């Protein structure tokens, strides 16, 4: 990858559902190590955009490249293998499984044991389990989940579930992390914790972060750049401050329930 080239490049991507144009010719570039926020009113197409980057939707038009390679038509599992992890707006944990198992599953692409090694277990598979268990324990410590290790995730509070889901995405050791409203439904304290984790991950691991968020306070605080979507189109992009002052952005938000709040 040439220096300065974007890590993730989305070019003229579009997606329609029946008569609804969810995403309409969106282009954007994300640099390695950047924190980019994607904002916009409900139904603007933010989640649809993430779904295309992570392979759940196939764009009708356009192209997506990660680290210079075309990933437009790859299935989600292949995209995950390349180092893109994500969380979901409405949480997609394995609810019957423990926190530990969820995080171990997050390491799936980093592990290798095949059928035979798993069947025999003692030897290769056990060694691998222990090595990866240690990595997972580091994450558990980082996210302060020590006491919940053996709890089924379905029994946890909403905020904790979001934290475990972040953990599962981090377990993949992603190069880029897509977060779909990681603070949605959280109280102020939980939001601050989550923002802290996101910043730490970005700083300590250099992980690129693409964040969808409605809370403008958080967006202003942690992102270096903001892209505003409205009805499937990018209507503004740039530094948080300038975006916030953009009349078109203010118009898009007028009358929606997520009116732009003044940043702290």
């Amino acid at each position, binding site marked *: 990858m040439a220096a300065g080239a974007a890590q993730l490049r989305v070019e003229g991507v579009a997606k329609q559902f029946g008569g609804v144009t969810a995403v309409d010719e969106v282009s954007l570039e994300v640099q390695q190590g950047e924190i980019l926020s994607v904002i916009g009113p409900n139904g603007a197409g933010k989640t649809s955009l993430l779904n295309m980057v992570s392979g759940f939707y196939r764009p009708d038009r356009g192209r997506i490249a990660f680290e210079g390679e075309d990933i437009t038509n790859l299935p989600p599992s292949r995209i995950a293998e390349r180092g893109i992890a994500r969380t979901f707006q409405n949480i997609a944990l*394995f609810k019957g499984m423990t926190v530990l198992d969820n995080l171990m599953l997050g390491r799936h692409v980093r592990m*290798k*044991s*095949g*059928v035979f090694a*798993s069947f025999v277990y003692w030897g290769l*598979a*056990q060694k691998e389990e222990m090595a990866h268990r240690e990595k997972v324990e580091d994450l558990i410590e980082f996210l302060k989940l020590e006491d919940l290790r053996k709890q089924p995730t379905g029994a946890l509070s909403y905020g904790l579930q979001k934290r475990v889901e972040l953990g599962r995405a981090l377990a993949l050791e992603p190069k880029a992390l897509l977060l779909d409203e990681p603070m949605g439904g959280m109280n102020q304290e939980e939001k601050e914790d989550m923002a802290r984790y996101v910043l730490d991950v970005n700083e300590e691991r250099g992980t690129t972060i693409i964040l969808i968020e409605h809370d403008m306070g958080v967006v202003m605080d942690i992102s270096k750049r903001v892209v505003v979507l409205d009805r499937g189109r990018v209507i503004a992009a740039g530094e948080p401050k300038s975006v916030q002052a953009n009349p078109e952005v203010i118009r898009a938000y007028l009358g929606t329930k997520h009116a732009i709040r003044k940043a702290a």
Partner: protein
Amino acid sequence: MFHRESGYYKTTYAADMALYPLPIARWTVAGIALAMCIAPFVLHAYYVSVINLILVATVGALGLNILVGYTGQISIGHAAFMSVGAYTAANLAVRLDLPFWVTLPAGGLMAAAIGAIVGIPSLRIKGLYLAIATLAGQLIIEWTINHVPWISGGMQASIEVPRPTLFGAQLRTQHQLYWFLLFFAVLAIVGTLNLVRSRIGRAFIAIRDQDIAAEIIGINIFRYKLLAFAISSFYAGVTGVLYTYYLGIANYEQFQIVTSIDYLAMIIIGGLGSILGSIFGAIFVTLLPIAIRLAMENWGAFLFGDADINNLIPNLRLMVFGGLIIVFLVLEPEGLNRLWRNIRSYFRVWPFSY
């Protein structure tokens, strides 16, 4: 499987990940192992032959549970996969005079290949539709074996197979077969325990619980579903081979739809997604017809004529299975394994219940 949780702390990851982390569990397993070693010396050949049937069924139930209980896919074609294993081994044993340690894996692998093919529709279809697709697989395989004499040996589609030979001695009696079958049943149990606690097994459970989340963490759903079909069918194939050696004959009548249903009954009654449940189910479903037969032979004469009794036994068996499947699906979807856990947790706090 068997364990008490309170008052015991684990210090290393290896200990935490051990199959039986608690001393009492290890003692229980050791006790069962001892009983299994003594059993053939004190039991009459008839009872040993019943245990042998249970051992064979355990392997098949474990395999089906990997697919249905752990991966969340369905198969009504498992008896057919068993027949694939049975006839593969029978042909190899009779035509090429190959020993069991070749025919057994060969039967398993052939069944795995066929099972993976039958599993291909699982990419697109689920539930009832997949059930019907695998049912079609069952019927096609049954028909093929029945109508291709090269596979089925012609005469009534059965092939006589010499009993396996170990260290130059042929295993003729039920007591000798017991050790042979026990070995493979234990291998299947331990292997399955290992499988479901490591990478592959976790991926299976992930697909069952949340296929979207499974994809996002990099699990290739299609590949893993086929893998589940293949592994599960491998167990089925091995079950077919073991059963063939047990009977001394490969015969398609042993592997019809009813047998597929029997195995589904085992895992539903025993407990979906549970290894102990697979064993419970194998025991229960093997013993139930014997119990019914005994009951009818002893007391049936009070209600029915002799001729009726013989007709009634197989039908009664089906009715009782059908009833039990419904009862368990509705009342206790986690099967006997759950009942066992309830009993266990009752005694865990005993005598201070509530």
